[in-house]
């Protein structure tokens, strides 16, 4: 196992001077996935001294690879058309693949320090993506905000991890838990401080200001990776932290649960009044992540399973919505809802795909999104009836803004900016959408794989 890793890293380092190193990175990441594939349910296995797998890790690695593939397919315009903006020999493909590699390694390492390293590592290629390939001058402030929020809130995590490392004398996740090193610590306030970084990364409502800004200013592949993969870092980190540190259900945890759930309802409401398509989809991400966080913090086993399922299904559905929004950007050169509308008459297939993904986003059975939403509300209702009602209210507002999104883009008279002569539409967005749709609908038939 380690020799596979050594081989991959050395290949990458050797290929760094060459042209097409991005695809090489992807091959190495897929090799990593293949090695990790066999693992039973609910056990955490150390495959080597660097890699530890359980089913959730496999699911997340799979998600990274799928989202990277979809984002590369959807942004082939930026790769092929001579629009390539090279930055000392690297193009968009390399940046995307660095994020992918960083994420794949993040989801598979088993020592806390490597975990933290890869947690911050994937921010660097994202930062460069936004700065170099974004479209507007506000991207500078957006990228800096993203860095400040995430790095600034992860400093307490670093300090606590170093403290625990020096106490337990080992930073291997499994070993420190089995030795029983975490049991002596009263994990209420320390838990909150440690998980602050994860809470900001999976944006909890109060600390979410960086996400809409970053989404609006990022190029398409950056947005897809941000929504599809990077937000899941927070959820994954929280699950691992809860698992290994044996934190119990206390007032602080309940406070975070209620805060995030109500924040989810508020951000779903805010979605209905947005005027920028990408910002609308960004606020919907906040709502979904809030639902997954609150059902995770209910400490039920169905809660953790539903959280992972929400992370996965949101991670496939949201990038495709972003690629459809980029599609409409392509023909109107504007993301405003006033200008990009009425495509139902001229592009009926794209309109059908918009509809399909809007209703998938709101949880249309029998897709994975539906099951994740239902069991999330179920977990919340088992805890307390009022939380379940809040979950139901969030489902209602999710339905409202998804249909508002559909009718804003598709209904009505064709906007005059769309109807230009000689307008051609490439089918790459359709390809990635069909791929994602098959995954989400067909996931019902193998629910056991996603309910980890």
């Amino acid at each position: 196992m380690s020799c596979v890793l050594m081989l991959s890293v050395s290949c990458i380092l050797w290929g760094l001077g060459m042209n097409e190193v991005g695809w090489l990175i992807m091959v190495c990441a897929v090799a990593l996935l293949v090695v990790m594939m066999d693992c039973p349910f609910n056990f955490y296995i150390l495959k080597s001294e660097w890699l530890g797998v359980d089913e959730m890790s496999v699911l997340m690695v799979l998600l990274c690879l799928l989202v990277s593939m979809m984002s590369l397919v959807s942004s082939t315009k930026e790769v092929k058309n001579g629009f390539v903006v090279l930055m000392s020999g690297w193009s968009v493909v390399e940046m995307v693949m660095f994020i992918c590699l960083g994420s794949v390694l993040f989801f598979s390492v088993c020592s806390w320090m490597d975990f933290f390293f890869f947690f911050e590592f994937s921010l660097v290629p994202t930062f460069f993506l936004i700065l170099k390939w974004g479209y507007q001058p506000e991207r500078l402030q957006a990228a800096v905000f993203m860095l400040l929020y995430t790095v600034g809130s992860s400093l307490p995590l670093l300090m606590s991890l170093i403290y625990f490392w020096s106490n337990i004398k080992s930073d291997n996740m499994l070993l420190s838990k089995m030795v029983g090193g975490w049991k002596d610590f009263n994990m209420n306030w320390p838990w909150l401080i440690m998980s602050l970084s994860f809470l900001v990364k999976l944006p909890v409502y109060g600390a979410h200001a960086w996400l809409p800004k970053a989404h609006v200013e990022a190029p398409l592949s950056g947005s897809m990776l941000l929504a599809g993969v990077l937000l899941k870092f927070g959820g994954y980190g929280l699950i691992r932290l809860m698992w290994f540190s044996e934190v119990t259900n206390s007032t602080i945890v309940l406070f975070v649960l209620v805060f995030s759930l109500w924040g989810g309802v508020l951000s779903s409401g805010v979605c209905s009044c947005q005027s920028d398509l990408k910002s609308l989809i960004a606020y919907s991400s906040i709502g979904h992540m809030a639902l997954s966080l609150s059902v995770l913090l209910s400490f039920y086993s169905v809660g953790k399973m539903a959280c992972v399922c929400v992370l996965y299904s949101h991670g496939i559905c949201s990038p495709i919505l972003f690629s459809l929004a980029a599609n409409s950007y392509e023909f109107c050169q504007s993301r405003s809802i006033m200008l990009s509308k009425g495509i139902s008459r001229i592009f009926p297939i794209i309109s059908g795909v918009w509809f399909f993904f809007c209703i998938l986003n709101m949880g249309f059975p029998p897709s994975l999104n539906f099951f994740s939403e239902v069991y999330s509300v179920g977990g919340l209702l088992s805890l307390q009836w009022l939380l379940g009602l809040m979950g139901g209210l969030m489902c209602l507002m999710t339905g409202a803004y998804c249909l508002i999104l559909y009718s804003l883009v598709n209904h009505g008279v064709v906007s005059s900016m769309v109807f230009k002569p000689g307008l051609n539409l490439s089918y790459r967005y359709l390809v990635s959408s069909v791929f994602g749709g098959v995954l989400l609908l067909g996931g019902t038939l193998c629910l056991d794989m996603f309910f980890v």
Partner: protein
Amino acid sequence: MVAGVFNGGALVLEWELSEKLFVETSFCLVLDWISCLFSMSVLYISGCVCVFSGFYLSHDKFLEKFFVLLKLFVVSMVVLVLFPSYLGLMVGWDGLGVISFLLVIYYLSSCSLSSGMITVLSNRVGDVCFILAISLMSSSLSFGMWGESFVSGFVLGIFLMMGSMTKSAQVPFSAWLPEAMSAPTPVSSLVHSSTLVTAGVYVLIRFSAYLSEFEMYMLSISSMVTMLLAGSSACMESDLKKVVALSTLSQVGMMMFAISLGANVIAFFHLLVHAFFKALMFMCMGGVIYYSGSCQDSRFLGGVWNKLPFTSCLFLFSNFSLMGFPFFSGFYSKELIVGAALSLNVGLMAVVLFFMCLAFTISYSFRTLNLVMQDMSVFSLKFYSMENGYYLSSLLLMMNGAISTSLIMQSILKEFSTVSFVNPSVFYSVLLLLVMFFFNLVLLFNCLSKKSFMSLTKNFLKSMWFLSIISGNFISSKLLMMISSYIVYVEMGWIRAFIGSKVINSISMVFRNKIWEMNMNFFGVILFVFLSVFLILKVF
């Protein structure tokens, strides 16, 4: 197998989806006489509607898209009927709501968009109630009733009832049904007469074991209020399709009333019979609208009796069925419901209101017939042509719906014939009192000349007891204004500007400079070096 189904047997197939979740997540397909009969009638009516839409939308460019949507709708309805487990039900239920949205906004205009939004949002409220019901059941780890404590069983019944009430447009969720008439007429005749609004009734019939006394009581009150609302509003409505929609609303209220009495089989019988004659009524109306050049307002129409004889004949028959005229199709099922209402335990007020609703039905039916058929010489078209083959064949296929459906069904299935015993002296005296009361009411409204009272009554009745204004305009505008002001103050104000800009900027820029100034002068450097040497010496 046919003999087995008739004798009360059923075929059940179950697909188990997940083993890890402690709840049973499975889709089970149930073929018993209820689901077979319902799916047969749904498929027959949708076939006739497809033929009809070949006539009605023959000039439309996106006809294939329309047919695809119709087929998807029929698939969702059949899934709802055949898969009555909770998870399978949600597939059909959500599918129905969402595809009916697409069908309502088929004509791309802003008023159809507003109708579509209110339709789908009312349906979404029902979806949320169902999701909460599924969550409640999953929290007690089973979909059966075995482990139910008192409170959660009661709440489960309330969620179920509210979900069905939104789909079947009972009060207070009735505003969407007349608005949904912005859809093309084939959509109305399939969706809003036989399939979408009856989905809620079907779910309640299947899961009627979950309803307790309190919920049945609430259901009977709400269904009676719906019947009164629909009946009184239809007497004032001038748009023909909305009149037919309101008649659907009152008939669905009657079905819900029957369920609240416990008479599930009778409600199901009325559901099937009503589907047939209402689809026929919508198709005749569609023909009239098409041949009048898409004019739906009855103030411009008239004289159809001479110009479209076949259509008006069938319209007359379906209206007679609706009124429960003896020995037409609607008579059998309506008589059974009236018998159930009289012989089961309901109060006197319920009987009075029920008969008032029947009287309203008769009055608006006659008013509609009068408006459509009598020649007022208002409309300029003197000549209608009825040569379209699709139209005639669809009408011919649906023709027996008005007349002989219930006779056929009653002769095939023994369950549909019941007997009820009524005390004749009580019955006839109450009937006489009611007739005199209604006569007095009609005289009052005719002889009253006070203008403000009449205009207030007209506004009240025309906007469905102000329900359509409250549900649509009022709620949505208040909510959106609240959200916008929330965005301005909290989202953009506190979160973005204050925390985002001020705090983070000041931490990173301002304080950094100040701390740099404080620490990096001469004494600061010496202190720093001294402290670090001291620490290193301490550690080693």
